[in-house]
């Protein structure tokens, strides 16, 4: 069973997925970040593959991507790191990035390496649905990789239903129309979240973008099975000298007050 499905079958609410940029703040930080995230309460991890021109990202992830590339990040080096640490991890892992670096790596080669490294899902926001369906879906399915689509408040119901039908894993609901790290109040998006809930999709929904603290995490969890945090976590390990400690602190700040409730 794909670990993403396993997670959603075992846990029904307050699922926390954390994004980080691979190769940042140090090229070899991947293993300690993954270990710490698992140890201190993340349920799932999205590993960002840095790209020189991250169109959907705000300044924080633009910066982490640039630093990671300067550190010498390559997809090849990431797979090596993952192969070394996957056995110690039981949480689902997702690779997130932009299409071009994956295309240059070679799509099938990428899928094979991802499967061998224990990857469960792929997010490529700039791969259009129609192209995915025509050219890529059979390949991802062959290697048991769930392809996760993003929807925004602007996405039509017809398109959301189509994405739901042709994908597995979960639906990534972008909390507002924005790039990553933009401060829009997610409580103002209640109508949109209710519309998604009302659609009774086959896939669970996780809410991401703009989730940065216990309040926004809890708000998101009222309308979905969980939420995704990226920018706020990446920021919290900027210049970190003790990633495990900083990750612990960060996850506590997201999860603790919720546990008291």
């Amino acid at each position, binding site marked *: 069973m794909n670990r993403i499905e396993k997670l959603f079958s075992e846990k029904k609410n307050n699922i926390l997925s954390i994004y980080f940029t691979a190769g940042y703040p140090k090229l070899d930080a991947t293993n300690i970040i993954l270990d710490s995230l698992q140890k201190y309460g993340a349920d799932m991890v999205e590993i960002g593959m840095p790209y020189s*021109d991250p*169109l*959907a990202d705000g300044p924080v992830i633009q910066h982490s991507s640039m630093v990671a590339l300067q550190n010498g990040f*390559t997809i090849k080096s990431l797979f090596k790191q993952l192969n070394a640490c996957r056995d110690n991890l039981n949480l689902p892992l997702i690779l997130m990035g932009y*299409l*071009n*670096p994956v*295309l*240059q790596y070679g799509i099938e080669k990428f899928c094979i390496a991802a499967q061998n490294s224990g990857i469960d899902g792929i997010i490529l926001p700039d791969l259009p649905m129609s192209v995915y369906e025509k050219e890529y879906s059979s390949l991802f399915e062959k290697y048991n990789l769930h392809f996760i689509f993003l929807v925004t408040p602007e996405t039509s119901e017809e398109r959301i239903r189509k994405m739901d039908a042709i994908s597995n894993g979960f639906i990534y609901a972008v909390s507002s*129309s924005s790039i990553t790290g933009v401060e829009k109040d997610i409580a103002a998006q209640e109508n949109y979240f209710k519309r998604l809930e009302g659609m009774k999709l086959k896939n669970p929904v996780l809410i991401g973008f703009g989730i940065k603290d216990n309040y926004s995490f809890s708000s998101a969890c009222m309308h979905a099975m969980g939420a995704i945090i990226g920018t706020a976590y990446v920021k919290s390990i900027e210049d970190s000298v003790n990633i495990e400690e900083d990750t612990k602190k960060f996850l506590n700040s997201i999860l603790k007050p919720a546990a008291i409730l």
Partner: protein
Amino acid sequence: MGEKDIARQSPNVARMKMLGAEVVPALSGSKTLKDATNEAIRDWINNPEDTHYIIGSVVGPHPYPDMVARFQSVISSEIRKQLKDKTGSELPSYVIACLGGGSNAAGAFYHFLDEESVRLIAVEAAGEGINSGRSAATTRLGTPGIFHGSKSLVMQTEDGQVIEPHSISAGLDYPGIGPMHAHLFESKRALFMSATDEEALESAFELARLEGIIPALESAHALFILNKINFKINDVVVVNLSGRGDKDMDTYMKYINS
């Protein structure tokens, strides 16, 4: 507009402001055309309800390259009309245009694409030399990739990371070309040549002194090629002088004083 481009062609910025535009500097990356395009797309992502994205070059996601090529095609439709008056034929022997993303070249070529007797020449910016590490000659340095939403030739590392281009001219300082031009390159319908920063500067001064016309630095790249081709005496050659040089006066004065 990229912060660097705002500085190097400030008269264009002044003109836009006078016409009522707010000009926001793009501060990310190399602070040039590539990054201005990134920032424009990011702004569009942030404000989809009330913003319509427009781009001036034949790059970006479909249908923008096609739309811009059609708008720009007024250039070749006017060339045909004016040539008919001057020479009796609508068809020149050559059309020469500079190529960054490729909007003016697309427009100048458009109504000649199916006229096989017309030779099309696109001139890219070699910057400080094609192999200098500071160049924007995409057909010489690029490989197929996806950039700004379309598949075309892109200057990139083998890992698919975009390489920062260089050209003295803001409009040619771009690491890709529109998909239509990649097709013209692969199908050999057009000939792709290049001019360096230095060669473009010399050509701009040559035109100024011979004709009293001050060309944009971009267009000066196209002019340079005139010395590189052995034309026949009866050849009709059209060079698309796509922009005026007022905006590049700072760069021209630095060159003259150096």
